[in-house]
């Protein structure tokens, strides 16, 4: 919360997502991809969103920016407020003014998100000319600075190269340069290093971290990788089957995971740095997430949960997101803290 106190920001959070519901319209019915997600993100903070494929984390990000495929999907309820301004009701042009200027996005795959027929320089200059109205010359100078900022060696001579002349790691640096070109206040990064080798990933994450600190950007970082979350996030949102199941500060979450799903996810990770990890038996999570066509109106993790008993509310009610420790919210009838307490009582 330091960033908020130290700056002159009012009580309004930079980004406020409230009861967001996004659905896909398929021949089989409506897919409840994002099903009532709420959170806030303050200036200068990093919120990590973690979950497995199909949990709704990417669809949530696309919803924020109005980038859902038209006619196939739509926000059906909820609010997205940026700096106090409602984004869900903005028209296409108004959204275009916000995207790239105030809020920018970096996607997973730098191979497909850059245009292969335009030079790196052209693609860097586009947002500068569109949003900041710079002259061609000024935009070019700024583009070189940006390439230097993301540590591309020989920036001035590399500006007229095309994406195929760049390696995967360099392309992702260019994507980041394009994203921060107009000094956005919020950067949304969806699996920004998933397509990269581990050694390259570390340097790209360092770059993102440095830029975020330097410009006091808010960063919404979406990933499936708990390691990336551990490295980058101030706060963490764990998503499962379209819902937020746990929300806590990062150290708190890793020290005291409360949701059985978060615990299981951490236990299922093969470990690289523990002596004796060789041929270890991994704690796999049995089964798979429920279909989001008609999601059950009960705890969505109940079918895979080791703590859900027959006569529990788990299989008859939907647990609310509640605060079980300071700033630590969890959606389950069996948070770790209550299991420990119950064990203490019965002992």
């Amino acid at each position, binding site marked *: 919360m330091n960033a908020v106190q130290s700056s002159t920001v009012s009580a309004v959070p930079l980004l406020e997502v409230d009861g967001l519901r996004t659905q896909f319209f398929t021949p089989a019915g409506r897919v409840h991809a994002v099903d009532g997600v709420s959170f806030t993100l303050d200036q200068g903070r990093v919120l990590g969103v973690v979950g*497995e*494929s199909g949990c709704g984390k990417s669809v949530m990000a696309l919803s924020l920016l109005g980038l859902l495929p038209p006619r196939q999907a739509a926000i059906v309820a909820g609010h997205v407020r940026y700096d106090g301004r409602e984004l869900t009701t903005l028209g296409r042009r108004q959204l275009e003014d916000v995207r790239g200027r105030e809020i920018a996005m970096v996607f997973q795959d730098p191979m497909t998100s850059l245009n292969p027929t335009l030079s790196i320089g052209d693609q860097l200059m586009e947002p500068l000319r569109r949003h900041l109205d710079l002259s061609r010359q000024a935009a070019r100078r700024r583009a070189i600075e940006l390439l230097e900022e993301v540590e591309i060696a020989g920036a001035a001579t590399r500006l007229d190269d095309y994406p195929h002349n760049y390696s*995967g790691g360099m392309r992702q640096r260019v994507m980041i340069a394009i994203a921060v070109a107009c000094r956005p206040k919020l950067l949304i990064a969806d699996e920004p290093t998933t397509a990269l*080798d*581990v*050694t390259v*990933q*570390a340097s790209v*994450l*360092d770059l993102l*971290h440095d830029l975020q600190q330097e410009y006091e950007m808010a960063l919404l970082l979406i990933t*499936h*990788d*708990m*390691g*990336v*979350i*551990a*490295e980058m*996030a101030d706060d963490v949102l764990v998503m499962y089957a379209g819902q937020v199941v746990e929300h806590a500060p*990062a*150290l708190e979450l*890793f020290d005291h995971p409360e949701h059985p799903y978060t615990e*299981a*996810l*951490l236990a*299922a*990770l*093969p*470990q*690289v*740095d523990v*002596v*004796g*990890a*060789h*041929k*270890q*038996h*991994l*704690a*796999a*999570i*049995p089964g*798979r997430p429920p279909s989001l066509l008609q999601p059950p109106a009960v705890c969505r993790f109940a079918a895979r949960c080791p703590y859900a008993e027959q006569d529990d509310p788990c299989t008859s009610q939907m647990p609310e997101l509640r605060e079980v420790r300071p700033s630590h919210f969890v959606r389950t009838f069996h948070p770790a803290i209550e299991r420990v307490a119950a064990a203490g009582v019965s002992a």
Partner: protein
Amino acid sequence: MSGNVLLEVEGLTKHFQGRRGFRRQGEAVRAVDDVSFVVREGETLGLVGESGSGKSTTGYCVLQLLKPTAGSVRFQGQELTSAPRAELRAARRELQIVFQDPYSSLDPRQTVEQIVADPLEIHRIGDRASRRRRVHELLDLVGIDPAFASRYPHEFSGGQRQRVGIARSLALDPKLLICDEPVSALDVSIQAQILNLMNELQRELGLAYLFIAHDLAVVRAVSDRIAVMRNGKILEEGDAEEVYVRPQHPYTKALLAAVPVADPRRMRAERERRRSTRAAAGAGA
């Protein structure tokens, strides 16, 4: 592991002719460059490296799906690089592959039963009834309810499809499975299920694996020995625990240090370490 040597690879080399534009010319790419290793019965050799290291090409050369430029591949004492087609075909019964992508490696128009029975039919093993029994046995072995045998791949999740892929590769009672990134398309919770299954199958059937992957943590979870590849060469090879706990080659060390682990304090300390290394390098320049 003191089992007999099953696979012996010596001086394996694969060059790809470089291209400039549409004309063949230019430098050859040394995808695999003088690589040697052995795999013993019942053990797992993990072959780990980043993209372009030559690890997958090595796997394909072992299977003779790619013709090596030089070197030898001996499987159960038999030289495969010069083996005539018929002999190669016989050898492949005992030398099978598991692919990365369970979405594209299963024919969407075949039922799971047809997919798993395919190798049996190709090698003309048994009659219809006995093949069917064998398919059900295999599905049971990999944790798929044999009652689902008449379903199509799209009716299964990614993890279940990879189980089907493994069942198919086990149909001919192989001795060695070459696994090319078998879990990298899967979510963590499902990945753990498949890695556990592979370890169990190894114990039960005495299988050997050549396990090719980029993820060091995943490789550690299955391997007895590890070989680290980069630019077509094996840089370091040894007992799995040893390589992870006391890496010798600087590249192995760098690779291990770069893996993100689920420990915020360590990750942040690691970032500070990188930052001061960079600052020191910058100041020296």
